């Protein structure tokens, strides 16, 4: 168990926000989270940031945002791990708090990815970049994961559709969500190919928005206006290799991160009431379910059938709508939704009696994985 808790969550408006910038969205998120926490700005002595894809200052984002907010933190910095960054920053905040380097850390992200000229479609690879073969964008990595999963395990596109349909249904209940019109498996099947075997509706959104999560010690967390949410367990694992890693597409590092989070919290898959699983593409949810021990290896496709991951099902997943339908905040809103579930403040989306929430993140070319277990602090 860690000695830290989340006491503030905040998000800017989400979606297509002309005139916004990475900075303006990060500022909006920070002020919203600060108000949610009931803390004053001067109590925030740590600032950790994700520059996202459109911050002109890039890795110096912590300096820019710190200046804008008038903060003089005891610990600060920026990390860029794509969809793995939210979890990595929050876990770094926990470590800093436990080490006595800071009392209260704001983890902040803003990105005008939709209107600000983000380039998610660039090719990967450092030396011989994959554009030599026309291999571009994030969808293609996951298409190759899905293609292999289908060939080895018999997973079907209709099973992937179950993930998209569940996320959209959850988004329909979420006023923060960008895409709220319910879809069917047939809608998914009729949507155009992006990189076969992935259809358009297998893919996450691209969104403008900002999110902030404020972490403090358990002692300080008692006094807030909302129930504090303990980061009971946490884990990270990485591979810095893609083609050079024989297991790259199966991402066993995810299981390492999950096992560490479970171990730290003293829980297992059967204890999880609700899960926020990083869904850049539908196939990712299947891998998380398998690595998380909710089903056996290769069984993710059959697991998600029949509404099992919808609200009311055995394991509600991505109850806010996820990257697929809520907003593409690179996993930051997965944390926010997890906190709301444990607070019991998720309104129509509330999983009754939720006391254990799993939150996962993953970024770059499947390289950076993390997991956290959230529980009530009291």
């Amino acid at each position, binding site marked *: 168990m860690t000695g830290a808790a989340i006491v503030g969550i905040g998000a800017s408006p989400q979606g297509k926000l002309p005139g916004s910038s990475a900075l303006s969205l990060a500022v909006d998120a920070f002020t919203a989270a600060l108000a949610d926490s009931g803390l004053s700005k001067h109590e925030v002595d740590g600032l950790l940031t994700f520059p996202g894809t459109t911050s002109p200052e890039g890795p110096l984002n912590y300096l820019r945002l710190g200046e804008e907010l008038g903060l003089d933190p005891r610990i600060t910095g920026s990390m860029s791990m794509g969809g793995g960054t939210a979890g990595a920053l929050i876990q770094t905040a926990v470590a800093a708090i436990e080490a006595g380097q800071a009392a209260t850390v704001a983890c902040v992200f803003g990105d005008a990815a939709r209107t600000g000229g983000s380039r998610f479609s660039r090719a990967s*690879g450092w030396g011989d970049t994959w554009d*030599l073969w*026309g291999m571009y964008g994030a969808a293609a990595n996951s298409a190759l994961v899905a293609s292999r999963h289908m060939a080895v395990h018999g997973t079907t596109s209709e099973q992937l559709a179950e993930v998209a349909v569940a996320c959209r249904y959850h988004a329909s209940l979420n006023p923060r969500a960008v895409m709220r019109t319910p879809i069917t498996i047939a809608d998914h099947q009729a949507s155009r190919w992006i990189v076969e075997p992935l259809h358009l509706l297998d893919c996450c959104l691209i969104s403008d928005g900002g999110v902030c999560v404020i972490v403090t010690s358990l002692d300080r967390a008692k006094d807030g206006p909302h129930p504090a949410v303990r980061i009971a367990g946490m884990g990270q694992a990485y591979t810095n290799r893609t083609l050079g890693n024989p297991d790259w597409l199966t991402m066993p590092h995810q299981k390492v991160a999950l096992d560490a989070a479970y171990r730290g919290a003293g829980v297992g898959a059967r204890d999880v009431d609700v899960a926020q699983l990083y869904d850049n593409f539908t196939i990712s949810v299947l891998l998380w379910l398998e690595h998380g021990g909710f089903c056996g290896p290769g069984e993710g496709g059959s697991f998600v059938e029949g509404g099992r991951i919808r609200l009311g099902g055995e394991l509600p997943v991505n109850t806010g709508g996820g990257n697929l339908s809520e907003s593409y905040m690179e996993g930051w809103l997965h944390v926010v939704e997890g906190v709301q579930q444990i607070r019991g403040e998720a309104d129509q989306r509330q999983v009754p009696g939720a006391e254990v929430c799993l939150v996962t993140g993953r970024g770059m070319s499947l390289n950076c994985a993390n997991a956290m277990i959230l529980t009530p602090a009291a």
Partner: protein
Amino acid sequence: MNATPDQVARPQPVINDMNAPHYRALAVGELRLQRCGQCGLVRYPIASICPNCLGRESVWEVLSGRGAVYSTGVFHQVYNAAFAGQVPYNVSIVELEEGPRLMTNVVGVDPASVKVGDAVRVVFTEIGEGTYIPQFVPAA
């Protein structure tokens, strides 16, 4: 209107001291990758040091060019106008008999007909003047 393929040049490799032997070999119909002089690993991507044992010595070994499709997909989305005339096109990861996996294309067949596990062999495709890349075709 999107630019036509003729208007947008296809991406070209950045050839440097480290990878030049690979590209020189491709131009004469050989697939060469580095074999570590210390642990024997045939590595890809091309690198200055062995990612297994950190050995500095390596030799550019001629490989069989035979392998199997590890995973495969079909691009319908155009991310770079240079490929606008090629969609739908295949992108596959091919696992060579010697171990390394390459990002590549399986060409000369319906792109959606390529299956995981298919046996393939290398072909050398000129994408710029004197510049070749390895692609694959079904092994006859």
